[in-house]
């Protein structure tokens, strides 16, 4: 029963992700207008403009479609960095133990204790605005969870006889790490990765909403930012502020479903 249920949930997550990835790839074909082309402002939804236009007369539907690209790219790219940094530290700490382990654990604790939002804001203030600064700012504190969870798992695995046997056979450390330890982490890596994507997407939309996002590049958070600061709620322009909210929620949920249920697909 639970097996089926988790499989379905994971499948749903995969379908959601696949949908957004497809939209991102085919953005040029799908969007009816150039999202930065100006036109008549504040139009209501119509056959021409499915979700109306914004304060500059840009087609919101096209904005949304192009927004997938930025949001998804930011999310996945930061998650890759987070997972890479986290798992590298975890492998070093868990495999070598001793001083390396203590240093990395202390580092993780410190990074966890730092309030992440102010740090992120600070970084963005100093760095040049752009997609890569945003990725850096998002990743700077997000790796801690991954590092901590993976480290204890690596430690457990390294205590197992088969790793000890590899060592006595004289297998080189990188081979042990990448052939014998890492593959046994793949479930948990997948989970952490998916959750990191959703976390990064949330942070991105939050930052963009505050106006600290990627100027010039349209992300969902960005659309939301302009919707709010042009008083779309007071004006009752549901078609402007609701789509980005829904899209963020659905995409985040897609990754979370894969993250939570992906690991249960076995046994």
């Amino acid at each position, binding site marked *: 029963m639970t097996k089926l249920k988790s499989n379905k949930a994971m499948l749903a997550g995969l379908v959601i992700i696949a949908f957004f990835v497809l939209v991102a790839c085919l953005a040029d074909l799908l969007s009816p207008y150039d999202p930065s082309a100006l036109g008549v402002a504040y139009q209501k939804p119509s056959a021409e403009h499915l979700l109306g236009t914004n304060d500059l007369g840009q087609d919101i539907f096209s904005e949304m479609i192009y927004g997938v690209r930025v949001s998804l790219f930011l999310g996945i790219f930061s998650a890759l960095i987070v997972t890479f940094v986290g798992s590298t530290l975890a492998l070093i700490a868990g495999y070598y133990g001793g001083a390396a382990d203590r240093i990395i654990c202390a580092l993780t604790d410190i990074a966890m204790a730092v309030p992440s939002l102010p740090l992120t804001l600070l970084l963005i203030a100093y760095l040049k605005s752009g997609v890569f600064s945003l990725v850096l700012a998002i990743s700077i504190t997000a790796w801690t969870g991954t590092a901590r969870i993976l480290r204890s798992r690596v430690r457990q695995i390294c205590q197992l*006889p*088969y790793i*000890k*046997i590899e060592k006595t056979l*004289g297998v080189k450390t990188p081979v042990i790490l990448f*052939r*014998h330890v890492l593959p*046994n982490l793949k479930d948990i890596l997948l989970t952490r990765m998916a959750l990191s994507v959703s976390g990064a997407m949330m942070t991105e939309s939050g930052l963009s909403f505050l106006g600290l996002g990627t100027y010039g590049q349209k992300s969902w958070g960005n659309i939301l930012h302009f919707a709010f600061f042009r008083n779309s709620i007071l004006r009752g322009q549901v078609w402007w502020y609701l789509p980005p909210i829904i899209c963020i929620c659905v995409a985040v949920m897609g990754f979370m479903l894969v993250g939570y249920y992906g690991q249960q697909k076995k046994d």
Partner: protein
Amino acid sequence: MSDVILEARGLTKRFRSREEGRRYFTAVDGASLSLHPGETLGLLGESGSGKSTLGQMLVGLIRPDEGSVLYRGETLPFPFRGLPRQKIQILFQHPEVSFNPQLTLRQSLSEPFRLRKQLATDEALTACIARFGLYPEHLERRPSALSGGELQRAALARVLVMEPEVILLDEPTSMLDVITQAQIVDFLRRYQEETGTSYIFITHSTSLAEQVCRRIVRVKEGKLLDSEKE
């Protein structure tokens, strides 16, 4: 000293203590022993006596706090490298976790061949498992599809590819039924007669140690009780 293949001099290991009041407890306390070619030395002790920790120091898995391990009269650095690394091997108590669960038996068994720069051909692999009553079809299975007895035999086959001179057997049969135990012991005995390999046999069973070992050293609370006088 040429008739001593592996020697321990004053091996000591302390661990952080979980109990309150004590910061460290000494798992192994100044253990010295020597192993001669072609003999089976028994380390007999209860669980928690430190015999496994001592064993893992002897094969270079745990760095001793004090003392040293000597292979043919030469002190080995930690971790072991080169020839000594190849010649000193270990077999563990729990066969079900002695293999990487992601790999098939073929992949796991190919590894020691690769380490010795040999080709893991079908004939080589089949020959290597055949004397343990395993068949080519076992090669394609993952550890979860093999029984404990089959896995332990495969683990032994894998270690023997290295042509070791010393094998540390850490309770190799305590999880197996008596017949499989007798089979493995018999195999080890015949292999020793054939090749002159030395064994260190760690066990808690007096009757088994008496059957298997020529010389028995008792381990209690980290100390070797009847260490031989030299």
